[in-house]
C-alpha cells in the first residue's frame, strides 16, 4: 500500500491562511483585551498614559523627596479632600506666592497652565513648583540624586519607561500622566440650577471641563497689583487677564478667584450676579438653586 505523501504546498497554504485569519479575525472576535481605563483622556504622542506611568507619577506626587525640606509633597498643597487645591497658608512663611493654589481637575484638556497661563504643557509645568524657592525649592540635579537612591522609585521607572535611571524627562512625564488622570466630569440631571448655570456661567465655564480655558479679564473688578497674563506678554490688553479655571469640585476649592478674595460660593455668585449683570440672580432663591448646582460639579 503506497504511503500517502505529504503535500507541503497545501500545508504551507493552510498554515498561511490560518495565520492570516487569526491576525484579521481573532482580535475582533475575542474581545479579551482589558478596557483601557485612560481611554478618552488626551495626552501627547510622546507621553501616552499607561498604568505603570500613572503609578510612578502618583508615587512621585506623594513623595516628600521632591522638596528641599523633605516635608513637602505635591499633595501638601494640592489636597485631594480640597479638590486637589489648597490654601496658600500651607506654604512657608517666607513665600512670595499670593495666588491661590489651583485645582488639578481635568487639566488633560487644558491648553495652558497656572493662573497666568504661562505654561504650555503639563510636562513643562510640572518641574516649576519643584524648583520654585517659594514652593518645594529643590534643584533638578538634587531631585534626580534623591529619587535615584530609592529602589522602589527606580523599579517603577523601569516599569513605566524601561529604564531604572530616573531622568528629568521621566519625572516630568510620570507626574504629567498622573495629573491627567485626575478627572471629574459628572453628567448632571436637568435642574433649575443647571439651567441658570448654562444661561449665566457656561459662556466661559463651558463643556464637561466647565471651562473653555481661555485667558480673559473677569467681570469682577481687578484687585491688587497682580497684572496676570500681562506679565507674560507685556501687551496692555492682557493686564489683569487670567486663565479661566474649571469648576469641578468647586465647593471644596474655596477661597475663590486667583487672589482668594472671595471666601464662599454664595458670595461669589452674588458678586457675579451684580457684575455680569444677571438680574435674574438678584433673587436669593435663584442664587440658591445655582449654588446647589455648583456644589454637584
Amino acid at each position, binding site marked *: 500500500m503506497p504511503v500517502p505523501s505529504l503535500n507541503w504546498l497545501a500545508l504551507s497554504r493552510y498554515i498561511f491562511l490560518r495565520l492570516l485569519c487569526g491576525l484579521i479575525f481573532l482580535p475582533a472576535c475575542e474581545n479579551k483585551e482589558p478596557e483601557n481605563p485612560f481611554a478618552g483622556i488626551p495626552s501627547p504622542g510622546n507621553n501616552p498614559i499607561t498604568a505603570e506611568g500613572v503609578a510612578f507619577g502618583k508615587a512621585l506626587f506623594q513623595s516628600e523627596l521632591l522638596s528641599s525640606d523633605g516635608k513637602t509633597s505635591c499633595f501638601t498643597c494640592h489636597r485631594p479632600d480640597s479638590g486637589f487645591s489648597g490654601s496658600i497658608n500651607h506654604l512657608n512663611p517666607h513665600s512670595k506666592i499670593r495666588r491661590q493654589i489651583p485645582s488639578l481637575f481635568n487639566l488633560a484638556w487644558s491648553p495652558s497652565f497656572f493662573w497666568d497661563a*504661562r505654561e504650555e*504643557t503639563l510636562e513643562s509645568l510640572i518641574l516649576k513648583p519643584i524648583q520654585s524657592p517659594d514652593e518645594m525649592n529643590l534643584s533638578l540635579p538634587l531631585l534626580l540624586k534623591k529619587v535615584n537612591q530609592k529602589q522602589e522609585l527606580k523599579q517603577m521607572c523601569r516599569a513605566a519607561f524601561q529604564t531604572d535611571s530616573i531622568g528629568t524627562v521621566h519625572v516630568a512625564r510620570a507626574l504629567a500622566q498622573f495629573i491627567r488622570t485626575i478627572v471629574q466630569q459628572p453628567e448632571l440631571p436637568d435642574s433649575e440650577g443647571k439651567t441658570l448655570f448654562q444661561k449665566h456661567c457656561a459662556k466661559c465655564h463651558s463643556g464637561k471641563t466647565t471651562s473653555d480655558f481661555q485667558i480673559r479679564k473677569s467681570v469682577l473688578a481687578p484687585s491688587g497689583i497682580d497684572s496676570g497674563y500681562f506679565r507674560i506678554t507685556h501687551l496692555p490688553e492682557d493686564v489683569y487677564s487670567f486663565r479661566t479655571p474649571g469648576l469641578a469640585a468647586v465647593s471644596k476649592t474655596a477661597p475663590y478667584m486667583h487672589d482668594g478674595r472671595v471666601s464662599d460660593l454664595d458670595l461669589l455668585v452674588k458678586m457675579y450676579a451684580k457684575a455680569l449683570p444677571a438680574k435674574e440672580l438678584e433673587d436669593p432663591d435663584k442664587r440658591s438653586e445655582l449654588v446647589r448646582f455648583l456644589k454637584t460639579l
Partner: protein
Amino acid sequence: MIRNHFTTFLKHGLLAVLCIGLFSDCRPDDEVPQFVTYLLRITHKASGSPLVANQVYTDSSGQTYSVSKLNYFISNIKFRNKETGEYYHEVASYHLVNALRNPANTEIILRNVPRKKFSEMELSFGVDNSANHSTDNIGDLDPGNGMAWDWKTGYKFMELEGNYTSDGQSGSYLYHTGEDACFRTVTFSFKNLLSNDLDVVKDGQVIFDADIASAFGQPNPVDFKVFNNVMSASAGGAKIADNNARAFFKLVGAQ
C-alpha cells in the same frame, strides 16, 4: 569525453575562484566611507582678546565689562551646496555651549557628514519653535541643564552675565534672551574663506571665533547704565539677538 567535461569544470571552477578572490579584495575596511565626522571648534573671545572669566575688557564705546556667565544654544547646523542643492542637516541639532568651561576650545562633534562639496554653512542661535514650546526634551535640552525659563515654557537661548563700568558708574548686567522672537539663523560662506567649496573627503573641522563684544555692539549698541537687565525677547532680548546674529561668530578656518 568525461575528461573534457572535467577540464571544462576545472576551468570554470578556477575562474569562479579567481572572481571571488578579485571581488573579495574590495573588503569593507578598504572602502572609502560615505560619511565622515567634522568638529565645530569655537574659540571664545572678548573684544578681540581670549575670553577669561571675570577679566575686564573694554568695548567699542569705551565701557568696561567682564563676563561671569556665558551659556548659549546653537542649533540646526547645516552644510549646503547652493548650486547642487546637496546638504547636510545634523539630526537633533541642539547644542548647549558653556563658553567659560573651556573658552579657548569648545568642540561640537558633527557626525555622518556626507562626502560632498559644500558652499556654505548655516547655524541658528537659540532653540527653534518645534522644541521651544515644551521642555519635555532630553540631551542638551534637558531642563536639568538650567536653561529652561522659570516664568514660562521654553528655553533661555543665551545667559550672559557680568559686571560693567560706564561713565564712572559700575554695576552688574544680566542678559537672558529667549522666546521665538530671539531665534536667529546665520549663514557663513566657505567660498569667502577658501575661495572654493569645502570639499569634504575625510574627517575635518570648521573653526569659528566667537567674540562676546558683539552682544554690546552694532546694530543696537548697549549703554550699560540704562540697559543692563534683560529677561525676555520683548524687554530687549531681540536687540541682543540681532547684535549677536551680526557679529558673534566669525568663520576663520575649514579643513
